């Protein structure tokens, strides 16, 4: 997974915010997944159609974190979500 990759949320995934967290329901598998506060914000930005670079920049700014750390965490999360079929590569 690279920052230049374009990803989209699977049409089979429904999302719901619970407090600061996000719960995902994958209709294809019937499984629930959870995202913490940072993951929740990443998901919201992906829902808005932002590129991974834009997501990284926004999250780094909003959570006052350094870009390399956020970029690594972002790519790890996107890879994980993609491996579970929750995100698709465009």
């Amino acid at each position, binding site marked *: 997974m690279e920052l230049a990759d374009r990803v989209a949320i699977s049409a089979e995934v*429904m999302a*719901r915010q*619970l*407090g600061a*967290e996000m*719960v*995902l*329901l994958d*209709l294809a598998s*019937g*499984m*629930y*997944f*959870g*995202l*913490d506060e*940072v*993951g929740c914000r*990443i998901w919201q930005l992906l829902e808005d159609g932002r590129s991974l670079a834009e997501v990284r920049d926004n999250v780094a700014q909003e959570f006052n974190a350094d870009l390399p750390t956020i970029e690594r*965490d972002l790519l*790890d*999360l996107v890879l*994980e*979500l993609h491996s*579970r079929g929750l995100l698709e590569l465009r």
Partner: protein
Amino acid sequence: MSGYGIDDYGAMIVSSRTDAYAEALRIHVRPGDTVLDIGTGAGIFALLACRFGAARVHAVESASIIQIAREIITANGFADRVTFHHGLSTALQLAEKADVVVADIRGALPFSDHAPEALIHARRELLNPGGVLIPRADEVFLALVEAPEEGRKVDEPWHQNRFAFDMTAGAALAANRALHFTVTPSQLLSDGVSAAVLDYRTLETCDLSCDVELVARRAGVAHGLCAWFDTTLSDGVGYSNHPSQPELPYGRLLFRWPRAIAVEEGMTARVSLRARQLQGQYIWIWNSELRAPGGQDAIAHFRQSTFHGMALAPELLAAAGAEYAAARETT
């Protein structure tokens, strides 16, 4: 049918739906037949099958009513012909396959609990080739509906209370509910449009995905979509749960909108309806796009689901599923 009380089972015995099932069983059960009764409830279909000559009836029931059914079968002298199986029919294995499978395990719609799954499984695993499924087919309909009272009942507690607390966190859930409700024909704002036909002789999926267009026949205030089903049990035998028909045990379902919409004659609602079975429970998704007569732009667009109407807590989800926790820890 599960989740029913003794009064519900009593009402089913005298319901006109039982008359239709009795006629279908009379047509199809031959002396010496083996009959599988899925969701026997109080045992009325098993009794009828015995009366029409079945040599063996396998009666399946997952609820506690099974004990009443046992007593009723014994009281009518059929204990030697009826074998009870407690649990779901999808876990059942029969040494002798059935000549007739009979079931009424629907809710307000055929997409309820394990209903389509049980009939698909029965056809594949438990029915003799050339055997008969009762019901043969169900058809689901949708119409625009006025239902002000239902919305008020579920919304008001979250918006107004005499203690003057802010309870509005519950309002978003209330807006994503599919409700059983009582409805009369005068509340319908459009004709009923067929959304799906479930032909159990060939059905391969438990899920639903359909698109329908509903056109308002008169002006009014729409609160959502009314859903019901018609059934065919056999040639010329069936019944309708249309709001104009006598009340049946199932009720009708209201897919409510988050707010009421004033409609004029000719207004259209394009509805995408999905039902997805997850662990024996259906998740409903209904997206509605409303347009004025001849209008190009949508005047309202609602995206709703029962997933968004469920009370969920992260700690309970985490406790229930390892997958949930695994994904949580990645950020």
